[in-house]
């Protein structure tokens, strides 16, 4: 199977693909602006906004106070006034500081107002463990956002998707949350220079296989694919599905694969309990129960805060070896 990213000659990093997509949207649409902590002069703590302030000026690349509620409110008020804001909440953990503005305000205004408000706002943030950033700078909190009617949520796994999904989020007329993974920022892949969209709500089969369906997203796509490649030498062929968008979920692609393979594992970095894996497993059980030959396997982080010490953190984050063990057992079940 050939993915768009494989045939593209120009290879750039995930973080650079994000920056390029944002800059192209700002070039194309004067209503697009970005605001957040350190996004201006500093270019963002991860360099994701580098060069934009010099190019577009202080009014379109806005350094804000460390005030997450006001940052999201700034975007919401500007969006209902006709602008197309991109607001950055540096670390996904900080999204919790702004939960009222995201959940009670931005997500609901359109519905509460009888459809009159339009909120083309993109919230960008960075999730994920693996940098010894400890419990308040490492979380994957996507499940709680996917629970909120009115929000859309994406978590790209590669540079091609990072650019295409960001452009789709910015062009979308709803509040969207674009979640980067910190450990993917430097990962390179093929990215076309011209702007392009990846429709929200479309999953992608990144590795075909007939024995086990592995449903995953974000950085775990790479761990799951590594596990799948290793298992192939044992004669177990996994079909790896990258969800790309988590709200709305492309359950059609998942269910069709499950009906064909009859064995499903759902893998995410987020804490397993209450994670998106439960929702996905439940959806498969509802739509494809009669096709299943084994209980649905769920792989996720254990039920603890993210630990600091590298020795502990590597036990916390699911990896290819852990995923491989579970899939091997699932294939034999």
């Amino acid at each position, binding site marked *: 199977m050939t993915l768009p990213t494989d045939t593209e000659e120009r290879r750039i990093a995930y973080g650079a693909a994000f920056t390029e997509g944002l800059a192209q949207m700002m070039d194309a649409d004067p209503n697009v*602006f970005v605001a957040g902590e350190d996004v201006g002069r500093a270019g963002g703590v991860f360099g994701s906004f580098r060069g934009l302030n010099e190019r577009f000026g202080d009014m379109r690349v806005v350094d804000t106070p460390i*005030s997450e509620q006001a940052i999201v409110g700034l975007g919401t008020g500007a969006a*209902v006034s006709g602008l197309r804001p991109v607001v950055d909440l540096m670390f996904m953990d900080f999204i919790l500081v702004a939960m009222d503005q995201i959940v*009670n305000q931005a997500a609901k205004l359109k519905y509460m107002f009888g459809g009159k408000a339009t909120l083309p706002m993109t919230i960008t943030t960075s999730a994920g463990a693996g940098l010894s950033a400890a419990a308040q700078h490492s979380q994957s909190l996507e499940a709680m956002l996917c629970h909120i009617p009115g929000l859309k949520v994406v978590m790209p796994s590669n540079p091609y998707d990072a650019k295409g999904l960001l452009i789709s989020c910015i062009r979308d007329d709803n509040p969207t949350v674009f979640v980067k993974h910190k450990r993917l920022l430097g990962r390179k892949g093929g990215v076309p220079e011209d702007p392009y969209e990846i429709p929200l709500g479309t999953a992608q089969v990144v590795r075909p296989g007939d024995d086990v369906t592995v449903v995953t997203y974000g950085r775990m796509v790479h761990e799951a694919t590594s596990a799948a490649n290793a298992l192939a030498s044992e004669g177990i062929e996994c079909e790896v599905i990258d969800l790309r968008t988590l709200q709305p979920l492309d359950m059609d692609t998942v269910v069709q694969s499950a009906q064909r393979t009859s064995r499903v594992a759902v893998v995410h970095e987020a804490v397993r309990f209450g994670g998106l894996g439960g929702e996905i497993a439940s959806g498969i059980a509802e739509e494809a129960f009669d096709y299943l030959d084994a209980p649905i396997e769920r792989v996720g982080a254990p039920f603890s805060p993210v630990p600091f010490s590298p020795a502990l953190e590597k036990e916390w984050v699911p990896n290819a070896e852990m995923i491989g063990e579970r899939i091997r057992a699932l294939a034999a079940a």
Partner: protein
Amino acid sequence: MDPSSETLLDLHRRMVRIRHFEEAAGRLAEQNRLPGFLHLYVGEEAVAAGVCANLDDDDQISSTHRGHGHLVAKGGDYGGMMAELMGKATGYCGGKGGSMHICDLDLGMLGANGIVGGGVPIAVGAGFANKYRGSDRVSVVFFGDGASNIGAFHEAANMAAALSLPVLFVCENNEYGEFTPRDRTMAITDVVDRAAGYGMPGAIVDGMDVVAVWEAANEAVSRARRGEGPSFIEAKTYRFYNHHGVQTLGMKYRSDDELEQWKQRDPIELFEDRLASAGVLDADGAQAVHAAAQADIEAAIAFAEQSPLPDPDSLLVDVYTPTAYSGATP
């Protein structure tokens, strides 16, 4: 700047229209003809009227759980409002918002808000959009003394000042955050003291004096339109009814004497005395304004009662906007 006679009559009409809407809503609630919560603005009319008389339809306001008065003052339609309070399909929000989320974006009214302080950052965002476009439009945040204790207010006030946005913060200090007196919840007497901490000018006005409110708002709005940044007005006022609904339901959180003293300074009665003394509007003229508002509210109630309930099929409509991005729009 002194208000013209025309402005004085406009202020009177706005206050009277708020009063009649709220008294009618209170009566309907007492008769169990309105579902849900109801936070009445009676007693505080001079604040919304005095501020909104300085605004055009293109200027935005964000409001509070006690938001009907702000929408009426901004020119809101009685029929759409009453239908919304009754949860009817013809309501401002198609019956999906109710009293606490009533809005009219065409009038720049960005919504009442069920979360104390929740509307403050949103109005600051609207102010940002105005500055971004280089327009001279302004946004106004209405909030209570209670909301001045929540983080969203402080974050948004600081941001408005740091980015020098055309925003007017109007604190309606009615001395109670829900049922708890202000002196139990803050160590300052005047909420406006907080403005200095954000580097914005602040003023205290008598919130029962509509002309005083109008004058202070006129100056602050002009300042914002000139691009000189945000300012803060604290209006000392009082709500004549309970935090929600009409009756206090046996709660003894404020004294009858205190209520009576404030009612002696009813903002509409005070203003009508003044208008009569100044020869701008006599008792008969004032009565005609009341009669017109009363006729309008009766028509609005009839409209709302005859209106259909929302179609159950509308339940899942407008959770999302179907996107059809058509490129940059001016």
